[in-house]
């Protein structure tokens, strides 16, 4: 599904991502973990086209997307959420979502002027798509609420829905459960599983190990921009390098 080869990103002298190669399979939950500043968000930004890599290759379903711009990558089916959610506070949930389908539509200024058939059809489709996404994340009761009046967890769900409204094949979720309480975190975990059941591929950055270990099919561990491990949760959990760099040795301390 998503294949990355020798990906490197330099910021000045700093290698934020350093020679990372990985292959994320379709229709599963792939997690990326690592200490703060390990390069996880940068990795996502590279895939989604926000940054251009210094070297290396990114393949999406075999297609080379390495140098593509952000919006182009999104059209190819990469949806994402951000570490900090930025929604339109004084508009309703539904209104925030409708624009998500924009990339699948083609009407322009001229269509607006003559109110073309195409525009009408596309607007209807966008609205339907938004409702569908809202339904998926379980928020249809809140469609007319202002974002400003939503709870933290509802905002996260809206952000998910927005990514889903773009009709993606793969979604990149950057710390979706940060600032969300454990119970709600489980809700979000269920949601991710549901996405996979519906044929999506999920890539996930998270610091909440309970959640990661519970739902991830595959984990990649970054540290100082380098991949230091990858594998199933149980493999990673017991990898001494990972324990050293990230998980910390509870055993050590407990001993």
């Amino acid at each position, binding site marked *: 599904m998503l294949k990355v080869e020798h990906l490197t990103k330099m910021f000045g002298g700093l290698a934020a991502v350093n020679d990372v190669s990985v292959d994320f399979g379709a229709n599963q939950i792939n997690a990326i973990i690592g200490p703060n500043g390990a390069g996880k968000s940068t990795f996502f930004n590279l895939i989604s086209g926000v940054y251009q890599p210094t070297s290396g290759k990114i393949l999406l379903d075999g297609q080379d997307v390495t140098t593509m711009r952000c919006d182009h990558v999104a059209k190819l089916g990469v949806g994402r959420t951000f570490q900090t959610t930025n929604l*339109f506070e004084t*508009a309703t949930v539904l209104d925030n979502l409708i*624009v998500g389908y924009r*990339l699948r539509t083609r009407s322009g200024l001229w269509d607006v002027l003559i*109110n073309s058939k195409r525009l009408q059809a596309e*607007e209807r489709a966008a*609205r339907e798509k938004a409702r569908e996404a809202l339904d998926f994340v379980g928020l249809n009761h809140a469609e*007319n609420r202002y974002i400003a009046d939503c709870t933290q967890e509802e905002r996260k769900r809206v952000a998910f829905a927005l990514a889903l409204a773009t009709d993606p094949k793969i979604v990149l979720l950057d710390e979706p459960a940060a600032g969300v309480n454990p119970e709600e975190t489980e809700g979000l975990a269920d949601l991710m599983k549901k996405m996979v059941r519906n044929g999506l591929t999920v890539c996930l950055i998270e610091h909440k190990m309970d959640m990661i270990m519970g739902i991830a099919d595959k984990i990649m561990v970054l540290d100082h921009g380098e991949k230091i491990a990858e594998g199933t949760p149980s493999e990673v959990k017991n990898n001494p390098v990972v324990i050293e760099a990230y998980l910390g040795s509870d055993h050590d301390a407990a001993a």
Partner: protein
Amino acid sequence: MMFKLGALLMHPASKYVLLALALLFPALAVNEYQVYVMATAFIWAIAVYGFNVITGYCGQLNLAHGGFFAIGAYTVGLLTSDYGWGFWSSFLAALVLTGVLGFLVGAISLRLKEHYFAIFTLCVGFIIYLLLDKWEELTHGAVGVRNIAAPEGFGLVNFRETVPVYYLVLFFLVFIIWFTSRIQKSLLGRTFIAIRNGDDLAESLGINLMKTKILAFIISTVYAGLAGALYAGMIRFVGPEDGNVLHTFNMIMYMLVGGIGTLFGPLIGTISIVWLTQSLQFLEEYRMIIFGPMLVLLVIFFPLGVAGSFLTWMHRKAQALGLGAKKVQTESKVKSSGQEANNNA
């Protein structure tokens, strides 16, 4: 009670009432001067609608806006007075030219962000002003352009008279509002708003930032050019002061007072401030002593402007009353669902 009144205001029919009022205004006005001022206010409102597209919807504070207004006015002025063109052909030329220049300026300036963009465009606006003032071979410099042709009328309609010009301007204003509302409701408008919320998010939704921003920029400059062209046809004299940066600041003020990013904000703001300025005239040089602090109080206590505050209040109230926003036609920011029927009508 208040809420019911508000709901009445938001009823779709109220815009026809508004239109009827505007059509009857020359008959209701005490004298021609009031019609004249109203026509000027409408012209400014058209320009402010443009401002609202790029700044209110798309979130880019373009301080060169007044400059494009002046370019529109000068295009008509110079073509009709120096090159013998008719008004309407010059009018078209003004739209095209402001559009093309909008594209060029936008392509350079929109690479900058936030304050940098604002101040960069401030300087572009100032350069436009300086060129109007200094490039004598083309613009007549400080002397300005005289003998500008009035819009050619038809039959008994003579656009050198105030009332016909009023209707002409009103026609364009209504068209602009209608067009803007179409943009606002459409996916295109939502795209603009997505960009205002943040470049990163918009881009991740597959929106081509540069293309969309430039489009918004061009729409705004063409509005400004249209307003400028009408201005030249109505006043029939333009000078470099028409490109003064102060006009841009005035337009910001109109927009903020009315409600930035709302459909009727520009109209409300422009009409009320233009009339307020006229009625404070008796204070002569001291009116800024009142006007300045008023502006400050306004942004502190009514940051959303008249229309913005009203719409937010209505929405909250509707939610609180459990009506659900579907029943309330929110004209604000992004359209709500009940609007579809209207769209197709």
